[in-house]
């Protein structure tokens, strides 16, 4: 079998990690374990650049805000040197460009497995009510707010959750906090700001992969055991709840989702599941799924290479991950090389 070259973005591994390192780790434990892994990062301090046991070579990409043309030029340059077979992008902010570039990347013989632009838009936080109408899946009462007037017109009781359209969420307990959060988050992420009724309960995440024709190919559900101040799972355990599986199947069937995804849920104290977020990519905790028997990065490569796969939704329940911080020791010249040449 030809040794594949697989490029992965999301090399950040801080307290708000991207999925890239876990994807690389999963591939190293797959039938593609000998593949050449190209790390695509956005800065010289992203830890994945220096993880030589996982990443063979690292390149810096232009910032996602610089648009798809610059990204394509950079990828074309990298392709000349690396002959990449597959790219697995792992960041929300870059996905729009990768989706737009899919066919052009195909002309460079680079395979991808991504949702359509319509699917990508449908899962935006401000479009969740539309997604709820389409799928019948419950979401917390939610309103897109563009101004103070919109906030004043809310007739809900506190607490309320204030969310940026891309990142950040704050729980507010009075009018002052609500306005303050609106100002704070809209400065960074613009409007609309999404205001949701707070649902009290345990948090669950689902990772999945589907084929674009309504078929769920892989699935693992996890309960968050420990949540950081950024709302990220620092520990979690795999669970088996039939309701979650049914809801995930519904999501996949109604949206015909293509590619990997993460669904974030809250189960209210009454036992009802509310969908609070859809991420159109592999989440950082993907290695828990791999360790439980569902190697989603491996399946993505198989799908891109048009190899046969069978939908097998079995996984080990009661498997836990605990994230850890780990200091990498790097020769400063390596940092210098990456900083000046944008590759290592």
């Amino acid at each position: 079998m030809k040794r594949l070259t697989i490029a992965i973005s999301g090399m950040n591994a801080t307290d708000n990690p991207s999925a890239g390192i876990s994807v690389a780790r999963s591939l190293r434990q797959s039938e593609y374990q000998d593949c050449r892994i190209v790390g695509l990062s956005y800065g010289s301090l992203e830890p994945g650049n220096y993880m030589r046991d996982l990443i063979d070579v690292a390149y810096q990409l232009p910032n996602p805000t610089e648009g798809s043309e610059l990204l394509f030029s950079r990828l074309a340059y990298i392709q000349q040197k690396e002959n990449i077979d597959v790219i697995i992008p792992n960041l929300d902010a870059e996905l729009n460009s990768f989706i737009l570039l899919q066919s052009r990347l195909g002309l460079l013989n680079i395979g991808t497995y991504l949702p359509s632009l319509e699917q990508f838009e449908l899962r935006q936080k401000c479009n969740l009510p539309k997604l709820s109408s389409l799928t019948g899946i419950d979401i917390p009462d939610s309103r897109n707010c563009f101004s103070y007037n919109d906030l004043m017109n809310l007739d809900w009781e506190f607490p309320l959750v204030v969310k940026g359209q891309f990142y950040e969420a704050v729980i507010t307990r009075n009018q002052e906090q609500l306005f303050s959060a609106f100002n704070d988050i809209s400065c960074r992420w613009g409007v609309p700001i999404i205001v949701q009724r707070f649902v009290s309960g345990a948090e669950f995440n689902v990772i999945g992969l589907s084929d674009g024709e309504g078929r769920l190919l892989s699935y693992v559900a996890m309960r968050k055991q420990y949540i950081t101040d950024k709302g990220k799972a620092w520990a979690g355990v795999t669970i088996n709840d039939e309701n979650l599986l049914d809801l995930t199947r519904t999501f996949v069937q109604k949206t015909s989702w293509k590619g990997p995804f993460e669904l974030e849920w809250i189960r209210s104290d009454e036992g009802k599941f509310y969908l609070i977020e859809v991420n159109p990519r592999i989440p950082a905790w993907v290695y828990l799924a791999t360790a439980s028997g569902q190697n989603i990065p491996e399946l993505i490569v198989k799908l891109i290479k048009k190899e046969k796969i069978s939908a097998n939704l079995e996984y080990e329940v009661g498997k836990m991950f605990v994230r850890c911080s780990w200091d990498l020791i790097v020769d400063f010249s390596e940092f210098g090389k990456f900083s000046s040449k944008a590759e290592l």
Partner: protein
Amino acid sequence: MLFNDFLQMKVDKTINLEQDGFVFCPKSGECYTLNSLGQTILSWIKSGDTMDIIKQKILEQYDVSEVVLDTDLEDFIALCVRYRLVED
């Protein structure tokens, strides 16, 4: 009166009851730690003992009055029901 209510109680079949008292519910992901008596009571329920039998077993093994046992057992079972460890 309480025990009549709970004569048909069953431990949720999916629950893992470990030797060291660690209880994991695979459906919800919730976990609990039981002391040795809690662990024993849950294993008795699991093996099909009715509440009357469980009560008799405890009275034989522990120096406890029936009144105190009734209260404590009621509290324990109420907790188990609340956490969905046991069901009717």
